[in-house]
């Protein structure tokens, strides 16, 4: 936006300077003509004197062209800059999107019957906090899940604690509490349906979902 403003003012400046210069040249010509028209016979002289006038006009024109060229160069330069900036923004957006995808795709896993954040998942949560900081419009939902062992009711409570502990970690990194919602699905939404530790480990997790504003 700022950049656009600068470009606009530059363009306006260039145009106005060209206009000013050209109008000055015209005035000069007119005043000479006035002087000349006083003695009507000096028409030839006038004609003779025309070349200097033309020369002046030439000079003016050259100067004018220089300015235009400069302005054009500036414009092209700016255009390039804008395009680069645009590209950069697009690249950043892709990067942010990628971060968004990672935000949602990387769960945090838990130990059996536990809800504390394992140390290896702290960097994951820090990255998620970073994403939330860079995208202040994004709200997130943390969904707590458990493996199938134990009762639905206990697991609902355990899942709630898991989602809360990830939320609290994000809050400790400065994320505002009203940007994070939690829900527990207990053992109701398993990712892996096997009845072994491999499956259970995948099901003891917090999922992260971006909620569009």
């Amino acid at each position, binding site marked *: 936006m700022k950049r656009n403003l600068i470009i606009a003012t530059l363009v306006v400046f260039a145009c106005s300077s060209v206009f000013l210069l050209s109008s000055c040249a015209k005035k000069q010509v007119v005043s000479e003509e006035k002087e000349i028209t006083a003695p009507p016979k000096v028409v030839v002289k006038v004609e003779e004197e025309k070349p200097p006038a033309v020369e002046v006009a030439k000079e003016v024109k050259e100067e004018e062209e220089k300015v235009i060229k400069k302005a054009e160069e500036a414009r092209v330069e700016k255009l390039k800059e804008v395009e680069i900036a645009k590209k950069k923004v697009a690249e950043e957006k892709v990067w942010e999107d990628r971060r968004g995808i990672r935000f949602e795709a990387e769960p945090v896993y838990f130990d059996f*019957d536990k809800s504390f954040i394992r140390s290896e998942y702290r960097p994951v949560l820090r990255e998620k906090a970073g994403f939330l900081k860079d995208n202040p419009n994004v709200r997130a939902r943390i969904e707590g899940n458990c493996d199938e*062992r*134990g*009762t*639905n*009711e*206990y697991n*609902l*409570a*355990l899942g*709630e*604690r898991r989602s*809360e502990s990830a939320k609290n970690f994000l809050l400790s990194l400065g994320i505002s509490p009203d940007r994070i*919602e*939690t*829900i*527990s*699905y207990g053992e*109701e939404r398993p990712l892996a349906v096997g009845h072994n530790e491999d499956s259970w480990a995948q099901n003891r997790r917090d999922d992260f979902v971006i909620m569009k504003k």
Partner: protein
Amino acid sequence: MRKLKSTLVSKILCNTRAIFRILIWILVLWIGILVQTEGVEARLYIDITAPSMRRISIAIPDFKYLGNKSERPGLSSKLPGIISNDCDLSGYFRPLDKGSFIEGPNSGITRDSIRFKDWSVIGAELLLKGGYECIGQQLKVVVRLFDVFSGKQLYGKRALGSVDRARYLMHRLGNDIILTLTGHPGPFLTKMAFVGTSTGHKEIYISDYDGHNLKQITRYNTITLSPGWSPLGDRMIYTSFRSSSTVLFMHDVVKGLVNKISDRKGLNIAAAWKPNGKELALTLTISGNPDIFLIDITGKILKRLTKNWGIDVSPTFSPDGKRMAFVSNRSGSPQIYVLDLITNQIERLTFEGNYNTSPAWSKLDRIAFAGSSDGNLDIYTISPDGKDLHRVTQDQGNNEDPCWSPDGRYIAFSSNRTGGNYHIFIANANGQNQRQVTFFGRGDQLSPSWAQHSE
């Protein structure tokens, strides 16, 4: 129209019941001494307080048609089938295989027309004889119970009702027979609620105690959990998932009305009725942590019952409503605790195993729970003072969510012992006689709740 019909039927039923009552009184006066003395004697047949019971073998042949021309011949085996299944599920009897019966077709259902030797020779100790007659939509049934060894009649009753309520009628007679033999009515006029997954969602279903008369009562297409019958069996509570939280609902099963009771932020789960039917305990997370609160049936918070850093969940009340058992992980793993609601003292109840959940407090003051020591969950019962731990299931898959029959003499639970899906099973309080009662082809049946029929 249907209502009118049913009220008419019930009116007729009432009238006929009154007439029958008079008839029975006449019968009692007539053979009163016989019934009474045999009633006393009959109590010796089954001592249900014994730690282990021997099942009495009973023969229940097809019922005879008593009218002139045979109507609804299917009832001849259907009616004794219902009572035979009741006898089997009760755990007190071992119904004999019909294929072993040697009695001829022309024998009657009165004492004089029965050759008891035909029954004693195949090992029958008791003989239940019955006859029926259809008058339009009305069904008339007579049943008589005999001691095969002595040839004495222990019980005899006539009953009348509409044909489409035949199951109910037979359950009533079954209850009566149990009452005659044990001094306590049978559990056959009870009903079950449970979570079923056959639609791909978790919905609430209700059925008779034996799995018949199945009805799906919720169609929320989400996850609905923890059904709990009210003490009178007229209403049910359950928790259902909505977009951003769990919500506790109360469902008036008679009127078909559903009320939202609690939809506070976070969890609104694991609700349990107080025996007075006026208050509920449930787990909320409004304090930032799963704690148990007491609410009234409109959802208003009356009291916070637990205050602890850990998870407190799955409350269940003692029959007098003065104590509450619940699950907490305050010691590091889920264990069962008992809270005295008068002194506010909390005592840990379970110490064996590292995972004990789902307490259910019976009317006879036992606490059933699901515990894990070897990976699988199994059902145990324990006295509320922590003594007398008893294992109900072993080496048969996972066994979860125990609940008690209204009289406290039976346990229901869900088990995947048949391989794959979970089904509801019932067993005697001591764990004997475990029987499957739900047979859905698809999906699981979980979290049973057991109540008296409200009618």
